[in-house]
């Protein structure tokens, strides 16, 4: 397979795929003798550069253990205008806190979340489950068998992370020990 067809095939797959595409899936789909993970990765890296131009309406990003195409944030205003979307529901402070706790300590139960936040988080957790940013991941082997929660693939995609571990260490985010950072 020549380099041009390789690039074209990857582009076509990424644009029609439903979510991030793993390199291994690309290699398997192309199924050509001379195409290995290295070739695919090289092609992807060149594409990242090639697409990063002001006249390009699409970018390539690495997220949730795969690659996906997205539009640049600056074009959101025109896209919202075309698709007729006035506003999106945003995440409340409580929701962001619950996400932070789950992302950092998963798998985690609701009583644990409540304790860390110092506030009841039942309805927030439910909303986040409905928005598919959290998912249930079994039950903890303690009295009452509380459900365990994890962040979902959707969470990684939304926040642009490859893995939950890629979130910054909150310890480093705290800038001042005496006066709480803001």
């Amino acid at each position, binding site marked *: 397979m020549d380099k041009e067809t390789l690039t074209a095939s990857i582009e*076509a797959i990424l*644009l*029609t795929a*439903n*979510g991030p595409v793993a390199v291994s899936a690309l290699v398997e789909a192309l199924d050509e003798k001379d195409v290995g993970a290295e070739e695919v990765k090289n092609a992807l890296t060149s594409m990242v550069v090639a697409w990063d131009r002001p006249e390009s309406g*699409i970018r390539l990003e690495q997220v949730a253990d795969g690659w*996906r*195409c*997205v*539009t*640049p*944030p*600056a*074009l*959101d205003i025109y*896209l919202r205008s075309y698709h007729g979307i*006035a*506003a*999106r529901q*945003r*995440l*409340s*402070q*409580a929701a*962001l*806190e619950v*996400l*932070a*706790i789950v*992302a*950092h300590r998963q798998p985690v139960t609701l009583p644990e979340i409540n304790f*860390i*936040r*110092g*506030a*009841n988080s039942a309805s927030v957790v439910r909303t986040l*489950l409905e928005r*598919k940013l959290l*998912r*249930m*991941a*079994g039950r903890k082997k303690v009295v009452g068998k509380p459900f365990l929660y994890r962040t*979902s*693939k*959707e969470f990684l995609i*939304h*926040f*642009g992370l490859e893995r939950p571990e890629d*979130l*910054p260490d*909150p*310890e480093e*985010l*705290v800038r001042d*020990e*005496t*006066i*709480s*950072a*803001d």
Partner: protein
Amino acid sequence: MGEGGWELKTQNCELESVVSIGRLLTVYSPAMMTTVEPESNVPPVELTVFSGPLDLLLHLIRKNEVSIYDIPIVSICDQYHTHLRAMRELDLDVAGDFLWMASWLLHLKSKMLLPSVVESEEDPRDELVERLLAYRRVKELASYLHDSDIVRRCLWAPDVETSISSLAEPELDWEDVDLRLLAQTYLEVMQRFEASHPPPIEVLPLRYKVEEKMSDIYQRVNMDGLVPLLRDLNSRSDPEEVVAVVVAVLELVRLRGVFAEQRKAFAEIYLRPGDRQLSNRELLHHGENSG
């Protein structure tokens, strides 16, 4: 401390944006401030003042510019209670979590006021400090996620058709199928099943026994010689009783114990004695069949 403890309304505007809606108050933490931008025409419905008691405590510590490791419990406790009072005056729904923290602070305050018996005794504030530090880390991470969300929510994924039509991938990602989705799907399937298989109509036994009505009418016809059926039916208000009487009459006519006559359509139906004498057994036998 200003009136009702809401001095941040006037003094700390650059830190906390306060939106007054009637008597209700919305305080956005700094992280939330950026989202107050009129991206939406939906008014902010969330009237949480602080996202929890720890959030309020952190705010007080920052405002007093004191160290988190050496919290002046007495003064912070008083300020905390002033805030709670203000929240109640504003009719805000003060959750139990806030009250629980209030009593913990009171407990700490009383301990701090007692002269320390043993020098090496553990600082009663240790647990609170630990929880505040843990919560602050959560807040930092939440603020990072917030900033990320602001940019990332502006990204759109492509939706390109292929020249081949039958490519539609199954819609669900197996990785994201969890217990909740499984349970929801099960309930939906069962609802659909119940909707397409409505329970059979339950036939309740008549409250009026046909055989009772039969002997009743049979006796009346034989006694009076002539009974106007429609007038009789009109005098009965319960439809179930009307049904029982009609069935009883039909049965009596079938058994030739009663004759029914009508001169013309819609005219009165007269019952008169038939050409057979009915035994009690015949009248009761019917009842056995109709239950």
